[in-house]
């Protein structure tokens, strides 16, 4: 798994070439690498947008409006969960309970949290991201990653 992370950090997603290389390093077949890799939702097997927005669809978030957030993002970006915008800037997905139910509804951008989200806050977040600012990353003192794979940085 650390090798899969490394590959994703390099390329932004886990490419077939990377899986072959990992197989060579570990002495297993590429199919075995795929077998492990495909079990985990965070390993992306196709390119994803630079800003991966993961909206929590856990029960407390649903009770507090997460479905409206997804609808709103669909309206604002023109993409549904599992899709990336044509310019490659945004990707949208729904994630399982993000362990931030105290700030429901919540979402993550490249795995950093935005809590107590509203449609207005989502709009603000999108315009920040469009000009390359990350609303929470800087606040947490973490470097701005240029794609979700860099999340380890």
């Amino acid at each position, binding site marked *: 798994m650390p090798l899969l992370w490394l590959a994703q950090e390099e390329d932004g997603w886990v490419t077939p070439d990377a899986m072959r290389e990992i197989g060579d390093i570990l002495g297993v077949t590429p199919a075995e690498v795929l077998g492990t890799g495909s079990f*985990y939702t965070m390993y992306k097997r196709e390119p994803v947008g630079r800003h991966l927005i993961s909206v929590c669809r856990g029960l407390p978030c649903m009770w507090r409006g997460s479905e409206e957030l997804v609808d709103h993002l669909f309206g604002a970006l023109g993409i549904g969960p599992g899709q990336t915008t044509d310019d490659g800037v945004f990707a949208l997905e729904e994630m399982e309970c993000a362990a931030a*139910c*105290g700030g429901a509804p919540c979402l993550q951008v490249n795995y950093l949290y935005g809590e107590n989200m509203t449609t207005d806050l989502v709009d603000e977040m999108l315009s920040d991201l469009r000009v390359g600012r990350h609303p929470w990353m800087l606040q947490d003192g973490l470097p701005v990653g240029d794609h979700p794979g860099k999340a380890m940085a």
Partner: protein
Amino acid sequence: MTTQILHARLKAHPDSHTVERSLATGGYTALRRALQEMSPQKVMEEVKASGILGRGGADFGTGMKWESIPAGSFPRYVVVNADEGEPGTFKDRELIERDPHQLIEGIALTCFAVDAEKAFIYCRGEFRLGHARLAQAIAEATERGFLGRDILGSGRNIEIVLHRGAGAYVCGEETALLSSLEGYRGEPRLRPPHPTVAGLYAKPTVVNNVETLSNVPWIVNNGGAAYAALGTERSKGNRIFSLSGCVNRPGNYEVELGTPFRDLIYNHGGGIRDGNDIKFFVPGGGSAPWYGPDRLDLPLDMAEVKANGSMLGSGAVMVADSEVCAVRSALNLVRFFDHESCGQCTPCREGCGWMTQILTRIEEGTGRAVDLDLLLDVSDNIAPQWRWGQWPYLMTTICYVGPSASVAAVSAVTMFREEFEQHVTERGCPLRREHARAQ
């Protein structure tokens, strides 16, 4: 206000995650004391005397788990389950992000007690900040001699390996976690053998939850008896409860076990939004059978909750008010377990999918009258003969993922059968239509 064991540092200081703050507020004093004045057996005895039960959800005695490591079998490992993913639970993330040194000290003490030299933290992949904070804290602790070789001149070595998960709820189940840590798909294993006998790389392994180990420094400093003086007869100490849903002040609250649900929800949580009534609440994370408001005066006590047909599980209390649809809530949880099923056991792999489909059509207005019993029938193939109000259940699967879907479905159908029937006869969700009209 309850004595704060776990939250003391992080509630008082915004920089509680730094090594400087930790050291200034008693961090690593328990480790120093244990290494200088105590034997490993003594540390184990104190933890046993504390009566603390694992805070991950299985309520197993921590001291007893440590003791069950077979003598003379080396190497042995300590594995920390930081793969918090149970719906409604967010206590471990706060402990990791805001007080990583408390956890690391707990891990070092555990290694000392069970005579292990290597520990692994399996950190949930989505915890990017938590992972960064843990990595930094491990580096700082190593630099200051709390980890590494010959810690604090004791001649003991303790190394912590930080592992990053990649998005799989089932890896919070300890045997799946071990499979994942070994580099495989995160599929649970049959027990026995238990991990304490043959765990990671088939070596004796203690797997403990973040909150459990974060208690250990306090127990060593204050003694097991002081910890056991808190709580109730069968549920000792404090616990952090993740309160969420339709309450005014959702959040993590560290309270003494035995506190009533009502106190948690109405005093700590500030009551229900818009002054609404409670329709139902889930007392212990997404896997726990639901409760009606008639159970509000039950104490937060593992044994009491079990005697009343549910479990405190991971300590996540999710509260639904009168605006919430029971069908949609059950669908949300069942779909979650369907998504997270590892696919190993047929009843779970197929059954969760079927239940999701049935609930979806009921919620969307294409359900049939027979669907309710069909739902119960599918559920019965995963958790045979389980009825709402009973605990525990029988299961046809290796782990608890599949039966947890049954638990949500059966709870909802049993408690809110009329609402389900209304969905069928009115061809859709009555609550949704009410909302649409109101807007």
